[in-house]
């Protein structure tokens, strides 16, 4: 038997196919979570409606979701960029808080500047700090063979300790009393919202733009191609004369810079100073977002919004159904377990995709044989 697949449809299928595991994962999550709610005698449909309403149901919900997604896009890049070169970095949290700290102290140590210049300086300081911290993991890996996963995790713990020590010790503003913080950012330098009708700070724009730039870098540039060669096979990369060490270091520094930038926006747009509230787990969530997006910068935007939505919906679940806050944690856990587990299908999908793409190319043979 043979089915005729028009070439356009075949192409479309080939394009849409990579989303298949994600779609299946979300579907399984919905199913499993519904069973969980049902078993706990929680009204499933009402809960589902509330989750949708809380995440994407109104402009207010969208603002809520996007605000939470903004830092995740940047911290996910801290995982995704080094992953192009074959490194698994899980220390984004440390780069974020140190980046935030660097941004918070920049206005204190610089003369008064116009706001736009100060933002550039703060972002530069934050990115340099974050880039340095993750770069350190990459450097130790290339220089001494110190595993970057554990290395970055340890460095992250050290960063958190240094951060707390500085914020509550030498860099503490004596006026911050019961909430030890660095000196507050002058109002003129705080980053505002995009508009009064769309109440999301500019960190979202930064996240989307940086993800888009990262996409161009990894997909449409020579360096990006070089990263993938290093990530695919280091020996081959060395054989064709690529500067492997430098390339690895560059991905780490860029990733760390993205996380540092997230810290800068947390300080400049949300907290107004560096304090312990900066340690909010954005770095850890970023790891999951990056893996769920298969380290594809554009997919990161989608996955970050998905996670932001889940987090945003928790508030409504608590208030309307009286569910404990942990319900959201379970939903997130189930979602990521599924997203990662369905990755197993991706190998097959890749195979089908190539198959269909070829069909799409030769219209005369646009036939799929089914035995």
């Amino acid at each position: 038997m043979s089915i005729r697949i028009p070439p356009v449809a075949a192409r479309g299928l080939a394009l849409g196919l990579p989303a298949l595991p994600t779609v299946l994962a979300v579907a399984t999550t919905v199913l499993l979570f519904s069973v969980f709610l049902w078993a706990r005698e929680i009204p499933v449909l009402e809960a589902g409606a509330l989750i949708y309403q809380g995440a994407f149901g109104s402009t207010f919900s969208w603002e809520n979701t996007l605000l939470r997604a903004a830092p995740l896009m940047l911290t996910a890049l801290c995982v995704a960029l080094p992953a192009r070169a074959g490194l698994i970095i899980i220390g984004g949290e440390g780069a974020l808080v140190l980046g935030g700290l660097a941004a918070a102290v920049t206005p204190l140590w610089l003369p008064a500047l116009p706001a736009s210049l100060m933002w550039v300086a703060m972002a530069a300081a934050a990115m340099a700090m974050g880039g340095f911290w993750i770069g350190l993991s990459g450097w130790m890996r290339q220089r001494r063979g110190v595993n970057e996963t554990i290395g970055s995790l340890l460095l992250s713990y050290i960063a958190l300790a240094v951060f707390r020590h500085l914020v509550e010790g030498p860099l503490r503003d004596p006026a911050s009393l019961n909430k030890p913080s660095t000196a507050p950012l002058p109002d003129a330098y705080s980053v505002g919202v995009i508009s009064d009708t769309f109440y999301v700070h500019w960190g979202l724009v930064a996240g989307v733009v940086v993800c888009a730039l990262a996409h161009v870098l990894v997909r449409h540039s020579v360096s990006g191609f070089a990263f993938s060669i290093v990530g695919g096979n280091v020996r081959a990369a060395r054989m064709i004369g690529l500067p492997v060490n430098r390339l690895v270091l560059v991905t780490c520094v860029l990733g760390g810079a993205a996380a540092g930038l997230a810290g800068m926006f947390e300080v400049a747009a949300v907290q107004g100073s560096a304090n312990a509230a900066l340690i909010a787990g954005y770095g850890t969530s970023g790891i999951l977002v990056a893996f769920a997006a298969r380290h594809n910068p554009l997919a990161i935007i989608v996955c970050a919004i998905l996670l932001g939505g889940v987090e945003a919906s928790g508030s409504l679940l608590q208030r309307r159904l009286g569910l404990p806050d942990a319900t959201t944690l379970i939903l997130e856990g189930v979602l990521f377990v599924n997203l990662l587990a369905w990755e197993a299908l991706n190998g097959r999908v890749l195979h089908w995709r190539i198959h269909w793409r070829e069909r799409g190319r030769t219209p005369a043979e646009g036939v799929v044989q089914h035995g």
Partner: protein
Amino acid sequence: MPILNRRSFIKAAGVLGASAALPVNLARAADKPVTVGFIYVGAKDDFGYNQAHAEAAAIIKGLPNVTVIEEENVPETVAVQRSMEAMIRQDGAQLIFPTSFGYFDPHVIKVARKYPEVRFAHCGGLWQKGVHPDNAGSFFGYIDEGQYLNGVVAGHMSKSKKLGFVAAKPIPQVLRNLNAFTLGARSVDPEITTTVIFTGDWSLPVKEAEAANSLIDQGCDVLTCHVDGPKVLVETAEKRGVMTCGYHASQAALAPKGYLTGAEWNWETPYRAHVMALQSGAPMNNFMRGGLKEGFVKTSPYGPAVSDAAKAAADAVKASMLKCEFSIFTGPIRNNAGEVMVAEGTVLTQTDVVLERMDYLVEGVRGQI
């Protein structure tokens, strides 16, 4: 825009039915239906800080014509801003109690400016007229009065003349409690010292247990603390047979032998005041403080170990506190390096904001900040 859903409608109908059955004078005071939101930084049942708030919120829930909405585990990030806004926009909350200190600046201030018609009663902050919006305010309790009384009882009961204090961070609220506890104990016997251990964060159970053990090993025989959940400290001390004074809420059930007394919050008082003001349309009281006398704090009943002399001494101090004749921070007070912090003849009353900026350890505290 309040969105009335089925549940809140049923709730409102139930409340209406209940208030109809009430005596007329009570029902009149509460004739305006209001929605009140509570936000906690941790779990509602943590045997400590958040639980003290949640228990008072449960009482408010029982008031006629009051709908209470709650959220727990809300971090001090953009999340709390959005939770406040969601309570306002999705549930029509007119009064919000953000209960964690860290919520105030910048989160409560920012949202209060955006919603001038909603009231924000923050716990612990230092609201200042002209600096902070008029629809926001802060309330707090002078729990150092309870800690002073803890100190008096501990001073009487201690045999080793060494007391222990497990603290989260060296911030003014904590230092004020630590100093009051020490001053209370030294009012009994000036030889008494308090050893302090800072754990570094509000909830680190293993560190708190380790700190309690270290203090006991150093000979401290009465312990107290200022961390989010005193459960671990009280249980560890009971296991090792030393005495404890409680904090936040009563931990008497956890240490039937060694629990002496405790400094407890009574948040019901400020909550009720804010809700009543809202219902009657009275202007908001932006800066609300109170101690034992005002009913913002209370003390746990004495445990079986407390001697009569200790009870009598503590009761006497408590009585003069209730008559406003007593001031904890009466000069001369030196810090533990010997410098004079409060000059001879100076009496700092509880309302003095200097006390909310405390940054030293009084004489008799062993430790550094």
